[in-house]
């Protein structure tokens, strides 16, 4: 009679979070379970950054997956000089910028839906219900206009806005990701905001 093996009790116990360095070391040795954990940790941020840069869900999906695949294959070259997170971001950003340069004249938006919280965000509601010249604009129209304006920015300027104003990265982190100095980050951010304010003036001005 064949007896079923007893189920290990350890499988059902919650495991302590493993630190990033250990996961990177294990993934470098070919441990896909460790890399799966790394992907799960950063997938949302990497996807979001690429999505906000491309304004296209399908492109963002492809580029995000390719970024993680490329990172896995390049892990042996990862020296640990920066955090894995910064290094991964750099791969994703470079891949995205190369992609955008190739399809510069073929911009096609494929926007994600807004979540439930958007309609309950007091700041957004203030924007819509405020006495602006375009107060009739709904959230969807605002979303389209905002994405169109972002796409008009150059890639470096758009990236700074996305990383700082949308993703919430600090100037220092952005400088590391973009491999430039903090002054460049600040000046790009200032210029990009000026441009956006000019293009979206109808939606920002009070009457």
């Amino acid at each position, binding site marked *: 009679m064949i007896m079923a093996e007893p189920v290990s009790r350890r499988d059902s116990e919650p495991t302590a979070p493993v630190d990033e360095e250990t996961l990177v070391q294990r993934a470098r040795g070919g441990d896909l379970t460790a*890399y799966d954990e790394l992907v799960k940790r950063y997938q949302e941020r990497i996807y979001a950054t690429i999505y906000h840069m491309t304004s296209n869900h399908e492109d963002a999906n492809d580029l995000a997956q*390719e970024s993680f*695949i490329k990172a896995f294959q390049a892990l042996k070259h990862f020296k640990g000089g920066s955090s894995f997170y910064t290094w991964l971001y750099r791969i994703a950003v470079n*891949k995205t910028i190369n992609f955008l340069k190739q399809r510069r004249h073929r911009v096609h938006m494929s926007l994600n839906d807004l979540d439930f919280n958007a309609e309950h965000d007091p*700041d*957004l509601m203030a924007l819509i219900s405020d006495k602006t010249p375009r107060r009739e604009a709904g959230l969807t129209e605002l979303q389209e206009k905002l994405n169109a304006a972002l796409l008009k920015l150059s890639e470096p300027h758009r990236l700074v806005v*996305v990383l700082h104003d949308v993703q919430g990265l600090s100037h220092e982190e952005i400088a590391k990701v973009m491999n430039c100095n903090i002054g460049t980050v600040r000046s790009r951010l200032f210029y990009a*905001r000026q441009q956006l304010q000019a293009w979206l003036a109808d939606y920002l001005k009070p009457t």
Partner: protein
Amino acid sequence: MNENEHQFQALRQLLALKRHEVPPPGYFDRFSGEVLARIRAGETGGRDNLAERLPWLVRLLQALESQPAFAGALASALCLLLVGGLLYAERPDATIQPLLLPPGGAPALNVAVAPPLSAPPAVTAGLISATNPVFNPQPMATPEAVALFGNPTAPLQPVSFRVSGN
């Protein structure tokens, strides 16, 4: 609060809208599985295009695009190089001229043909039996060729030309 500050605040509020854009439900539940499946299938990280393989080329093109002065300078340098090359190619070769003139400067031409090489019979046999498509002495042995050009086996004689000026 002045208008500019108000606009800046409104822009920040508007940019916050981007955080509410979310992919379809369940997207992130499948994401890592798809990545790992592609890794197991041996994919190489996607479109390995020219730009990714030659980053210096991308940097050069970016520099050309963003700095018209640099692009102009580079184009001018290439044009100068091309014109210089053409001029150099068209220039008469000064190193050959003295060889054609005698030391006295008179327009005379002396062409001395070297004495015939006394190659060993083995080498001569090798030449005759060679499959060199450019030089094949065999057709010279036909009667028509002998009538036209003489005996092909006749020994070569040293020849000396002297062209005197008028």
